[in-house]
């Protein structure tokens, strides 16, 4: 094992991206993710890559549209209000089947909100966000090491499936400092050649066109949609990242992702000392959602904890087919759960049932 280095989650994403061969980054400053463009501006040129501070998030995401079409591994990052602005470009990138990595270090909303950590962009991330029927692969890290590992893997998922991948982090995971092992890059998936579609001049081949407009016939766009849905189904069949903690004998299951899952872990240990058999299911891929894992526990009691007013709970309910009692704890606007609050909630649920 190589040595571990202390760094912020945001910095870990930069190191992972560069190690994974990302050679193009464009972004616009916004708290709490400023370390990403700052570190990229220093490290990307050193690695022979390109850094552009765009004039707005809209421009940054369109630079990613261009860079990806030009054939390189590329990344942008922002926080909630900036990610909202990127939605136009994200829809075009998904429609054009261009691989790229986007990081959202979520903060409080709606509107300008605040700069405390939040998980209120779940719906935007997994249900769409931009226009049209498309899906992003959405990965939720809960440690600085996972900020590194998942960012590195994200480039492989993006290239393998020709699909944008979103790292859905939050202000705490982005800002907290933890030891990280800066692992070397080794592809985790087969990486198809890009030579059949990238734009690099048509010398010696037929011209390539990257486009999202389909007017050739009345059903041309329908066919494209069917093709995309088939790809999304394949991703659903193949990709399911989820962690379970003390679920073997659990009576009550906590569902939480990202930083919230970590707080819940402490709460589970504390609750178990008091005799409550609690476990955690922590989705890591938020899309595809680990439905199969949840389905194993259909009919059991659940507590969903989120730093939002209740978004992932809808996918939990769908996966459980609304069987069993499904409780909720959470709020938006920068509310953080703490161990004591969660243990109190667990006691309350036990008292009730």
């Amino acid at each position, binding site marked *: 094992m190589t040595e571990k280095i202390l760094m912020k989650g945001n910095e870990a994403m930069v190191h992972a991206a560069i190690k994974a061969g990302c050679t193009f980054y464009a972004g616009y400053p916004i708290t709490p993710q400023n370390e990403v463009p700052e570190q990229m501006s220093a490290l990307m040129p050193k690695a022979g890559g390109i850094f552009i501070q765009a004039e707005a998030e*809209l421009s940054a995401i369109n630079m990613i549209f261009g860079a990806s079409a030009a054939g390189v591994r590329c990344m942008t990052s922002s926080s909630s209000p900036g990610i909202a602005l990127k939605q136009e470009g994200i829809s075009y990138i998904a429609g054009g089947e261009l691989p790229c990595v986007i990081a959202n270090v979520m903060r409080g909303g709606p509107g300008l909100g605040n700069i405390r950590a939040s998980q209120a962009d779940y719906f935007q991330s997994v249900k769409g966000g931009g226009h049209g029927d498309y899906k992003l692969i959405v990965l939720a890290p809960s440690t600085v090491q996972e900020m590194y590992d998942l960012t590195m893997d994200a480039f492989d998922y993006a290239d393998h499936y020709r699909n944008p991948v979103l790292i859905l982090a939050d202000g705490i995971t982005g800002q907290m400092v933890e030891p990280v092992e800066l692992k070397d890059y080794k592809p985790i998936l087969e990486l198809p050649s890009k030579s059949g579609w990238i734009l690099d001049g048509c010398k010696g081949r037929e*011209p390539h066109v990257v486009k999202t407009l389909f007017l050739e016939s009345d059903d041309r766009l329908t066919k494209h949609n069917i093709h995309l849905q088939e790809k999304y189904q394949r991703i659903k069949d193949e990709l399911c990242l989820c962690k379970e903690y003390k679920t073997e004998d659990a009576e009550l299951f906590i569902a939480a992702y990202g930083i919230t899952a970590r707080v819940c872990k402490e709460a589970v240990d504390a609750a178990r000392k008091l005799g409550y058999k609690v476990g955690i299911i922590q989705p890591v891929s938020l899309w595809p959602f680990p439905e199969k894992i949840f389905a194993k526990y259909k009919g059991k009691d659940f507590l969903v904890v989120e730093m939002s007013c209740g978004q992932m709970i809808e996918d939990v309910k769908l996966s459980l087919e609304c069987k069993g009692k499904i409780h909720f704890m959470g709020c938006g606007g920068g509310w953080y759960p703490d161990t004591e609050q969660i243990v109190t909630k667990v006691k309350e649920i036990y008292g009730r049932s």
Partner: protein
Amino acid sequence: MEEVKTLKGNSMHYCTGCGHTIVHRIIAQLMDEMGLREKAIASAPVGCAVLFYNYFNMDIIECAHGRVPSVMSAIKRVHPDKFVLAYQGDGDLAAIGTTETLHTANRGENITVIFVNNAIYGMTGGQMAPTTLPSQVTTTTPKGRGNNFEGGPLKVCELLSVLDGPAYIERCAVDSAEGLKNTKEAIRKAFQCQLDGKGYSFVEVLSMCPTNWKMDVKSSIGFIDKMKEYFPLGIFKDVRNER
């Protein structure tokens, strides 16, 4: 007509007398003459020219409305040895994409922008453009531009010429044989500017839209004279030799 390799040779969907057809031909002839087709990556903008890739025989990326400059900036940075051509209409370049246009010019990206100014939104059916003339009637300025705080025509060459980034900026018109010749020479200089690595080059072309100006072809050519009163032709910036 002579065979132009850069064009596929199929008939174009543009209306009779449309300036886009002329500008397409000029670009294609120059790309043939300068041997650029095989090293080119061009944009298809949102607007009447969105089907650019149906006519041009080269690598093309269709961009979201107004975002051409950002997309092409990235492509040029990734492939600095390739020829990058941005083609845009007035709504695309000077309304929804003003930010991208200004900042791409200001960064001095080594790309060439061809700006087809027809003072109207062609594709959506004749609404006011940022370059619509004062008093010009459009479907959203029924009493003529200037009666409802619409401002005046946006003069893009003039605006961009005060920036440090651009190397070459010229405005031409395709309303006459001489205009065509001048346009071709301006675009040639702009292309060469990029090939020589001198930085951002920009050619605005005053261009006819008989359909949405609701004119016959002959009158639409006459309307270009009116456009010239607000959009004088000429070179607005040329610092190629200083770089």
